[in-house]
């Protein structure tokens, strides 16, 4: 295992500014989701990813068009990083016909299959074997694609995690296991329920899989690490485990005020907010404050327009309750 070192050397400032703007779109979308929930326009629950943007955006930045992503119920950032618009995401949360899943998925199942983001799954760890299967498929079809599974620290204690690492290693598949370790398994500190200090990275060596710890709040560090892992995968050297240490700004879900956090913890992590980190990197690369502000304002305007459009959109089409069960579009079960 190696510690990734952050390096902005050679980083293209324009590219990083695009990453920064995408992260800002995600941040604004999460804030909008929270506010819309509080005003009664989003029902059910939401698991917001504010604070974890750099993992999704950095990973997508390192990968190619057509590479597959599988996400969790905390997956708004992955969907947007893979090209879902704030509007189709927020419309989905608001049960609108224009939602990315036509109102049949909701916050926990945002999906952008057209660009390879093959779903957000709300059973912890269930999507890791799917990513293994997508990587297996890429190998069988000789496409050079890789698959990435994003998951939380809590998923490392479920059987599917271990079955996936073993099979991916045995079959040497082009799959990346990216753990977003945000320190909490729902309401419980991960360290109190896990025998390994680094729940994903420490387990990887027992499967013969290389692992890296990466600063999950540093989009450049994530991008570099994912690029290394993807290169290994495409070269036929098999899977990699990346454990990105990060932090969620909100509680686990809508109903969680996160009162279990020690005093000062959130504040310390806010100092390392991914958007602050990338802004500082941009300045170091010579990007002006005006350009950074313009990117953030553009993101804010995008999300503001998305909220307005989602609010104005018609509600879910009632006929959709009975479509999409089968590949023929229907739901027939008998003669």
């Amino acid at each position: 295992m190696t510690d990734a070192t952050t390096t902005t050397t050679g980083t293209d400032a324009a590219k990083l500014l695009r990453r920064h703007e995408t992260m800002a779109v995600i941040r604004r979308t999460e804030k909008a989701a929270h506010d819309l929930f509080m005003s009664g326009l989003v029902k059910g629950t939401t698991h917001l990813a504010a604070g974890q943007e750099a993992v999704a955006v950095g990973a997508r930045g390192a990968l190619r068009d057509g590479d597959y992503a599988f996400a969790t119920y905390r997956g708004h950032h992955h969907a947007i990083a893979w090209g879902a618009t704030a509007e189709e995401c927020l419309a989905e949360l608001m049960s609108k016909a224009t939602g990315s899943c036509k109102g049949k998925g909701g916050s926990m199942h945002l999906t952008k299959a057209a660009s390879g983001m093959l779903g957000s799954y709300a059973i912890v760890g269930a999507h890791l074997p799917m990513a293994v299967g997508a990587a297996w498929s890429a190998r069988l079809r000789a496409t050079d694609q890789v698959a990435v599974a994003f998951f939380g620290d809590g998923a490392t204690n479920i059987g599917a995690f271990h079955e996936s690492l073993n099979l991916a290693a045995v079959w040497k598949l082009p799959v990346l296991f990216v753990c977003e370790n945000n320190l909490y398994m729902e309401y419980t500190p991960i360290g109190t329920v896990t025998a390994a200090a680094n729940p994903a990275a420490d387990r990887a060596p027992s499967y013969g899989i290389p692992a890296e710890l990466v600063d999950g709040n540093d989009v450049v560090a994530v991008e570099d690490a994912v690029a290394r892992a993807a290169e290994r995968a495409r070269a036929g050297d098999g899977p990699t485990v990346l454990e990105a240490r990060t932090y969620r700004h909100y509680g686990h879900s809508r109903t969680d005020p996160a009162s279990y956090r020690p005093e000062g913890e959130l504040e310390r992590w806010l100092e390392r907010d991914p958007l602050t980190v990338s802004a500082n990197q941009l300045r170091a690369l010579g990007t002006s404050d005006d350009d950074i502000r313009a990117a953030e304002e553009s993101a804010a305007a995008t999300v503001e327009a998305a909220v307005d459009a989602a609010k104005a959109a018609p509600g879910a089409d009632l006929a959709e309750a009975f479509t999409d069960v089968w590949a023929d579009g229907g739901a027939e079960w008998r003669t």
Partner: protein
Amino acid sequence: MTTYRESVAEGIAREMRRDDTVVCLGEDIGAAGGVFKTTVGLFDEFGPERVWDTPISEQAIVGAAMGAAMTGMRPVAEIMFSDFLACCWDYLANEIPKVRYMTGGQVTVPLVVRTANGGGLGFGAQHSQSVENWALTVPGLKIAAPSTPADVVGLMATAIRSDDPVVFFEHKGLFASKGAPAPDGHVVPFGQAALLREGTDVTIVGLASTVPLALTAADRLAEQGVQADVVDLRTLLPLDVSSVLRSVERTSRLVVVEENPYQGGWGATVVSVVAEEGFALLDAPMRRVAGANVPLPFADALEDQVIPTVDKVVDTVKALVDY
């Protein structure tokens, strides 16, 4: 004549020959040919890039099949004993049947999960269950359960070509049974029950192992002057209740023979539809000959007590005819 067992491998091989995206994965299915010898010959013909041995990792097997199915392949995953479906039930209950719907139709999952199902062989409580009713509780899965060698091939063709996920139940008690081989290009559509015997007094509906049982019972009943229609459902989903209703229209009596437990068994769905839509056709109460609501015991004599037998079907039909 060929066996049901050989027909499993034959059905898969025919599809692998016509479609390069069909791949198999499962425990011991490669060079070993499967613990039930239902994949014999596949590894030799198609090699390790099409026939993959896996670890004992049911979640990884079915989950990987799902991921591959979403990305252009047509995987055929084997779960050795259907009891083990419980080890990967998340995939059958929460993932595979729901992903198309919950993504608004963005993905399809053309996969087959094959599994050896059913009792009668003395394997005890954890290797003998008939669990086709488990799958029937979940909207989004298609379910096939053939009773003859030719149907194994024909339904396998439909299952593998299906763009929807299919759970394919191969009955352990039928593996050694023989029947006419499937003709070339044999395809049996889903949702079309087979009327295997025509009678006027009672309709007996069966699936997989209970079909030969129903046919034997019908022979014995005929000796006693009772003529039975025997309907093989062949698939539970789609469920061909129209064929059942058409038969009941002629016979006015219905007996359903199912190996899964009475509690929650598929026969309950069949009789509920007939009760709702065909009540006026009936001259007697409907009856279900089903597995008892107990775990499967080991000893032969005990197992016979709790799964359907020819005697139980004959007795049930006679009581019904006398009603």
